[in-house]
């Protein structure tokens, strides 16, 4: 069966520090991969998606970047965090036989 792993679960980082969040999917190949952000009490905003290795589409210009170094690995990064980067970050995947995106457990990021 397919599973999605996301870590860390929580993170407190100072302003100006770098960020790296990792997401991996198991049990499938060539998934579509997504990074979403959810601000407190709000809906979800798509940040990046990827349909293949090295293929990244950005939805919102911002302080963040994404990379897909392997088929089932998706990484969200920042060189210097801002206070406004705080939020709940969710990785998701979709693919053959999965009409809806399946979400990871999320990372709660607090920038202080």
């Amino acid at each position, binding site marked *: 069966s397919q599973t999605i792993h996301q870590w860390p679960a929580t993170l407190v980082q100072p302003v100006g520090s770098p960020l790296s969040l990792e997401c991996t999917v198991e049990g499938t190949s060539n998934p*579509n991969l*997504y990074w979403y952000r959810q601000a407190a009490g*709000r*809906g*979800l*905003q*798509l940040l990046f*998606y990827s*349909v293949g290795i090295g293929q990244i*589409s950005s*939805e919102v210009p911002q302080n963040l970047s994404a990379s897909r170094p392997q088929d089932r690995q998706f990484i969200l990064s920042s060189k210097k965090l801002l206070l406004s980067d705080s939020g709940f970050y*969710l990785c998701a995947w979709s693919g053959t036989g999965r*009409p*809806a*995106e*399946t*979400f*990871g*457990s*999320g990372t*709660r990021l607090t920038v202080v």
Partner: protein
Amino acid sequence: ELKVEQNPLFLSMQEGKNYTIYCNYSTTSDRLYWYRQDPGKSLESLFVLLSNGAVKQEGRLMASLDTKARLSTLHITAAVHDLSATYFCAGRQGAQKLVFGQGTRLTINP
């Protein structure tokens, strides 16, 4: 650009009652999704509605889609406390992008 609006945003109801959450979307979307989110948790897929007139049911939840009215509904029958959560609808824009509504925070009181 697709916009998705839910109402109500907050809903407090008693156990045993029925209620409906509405999801309106602005442009053609060939699929409509419903998700559930418990506090501090991730999103769980509930329903995928693929065509006009689609109706899906799971336990006390039933979702429907009217593409002509650009409206989806999530109906709760005889609510129980375990259904307390935030419910999101989302439409598909293009091939990859899910556009989410603001969410409806549902609280079911004994």
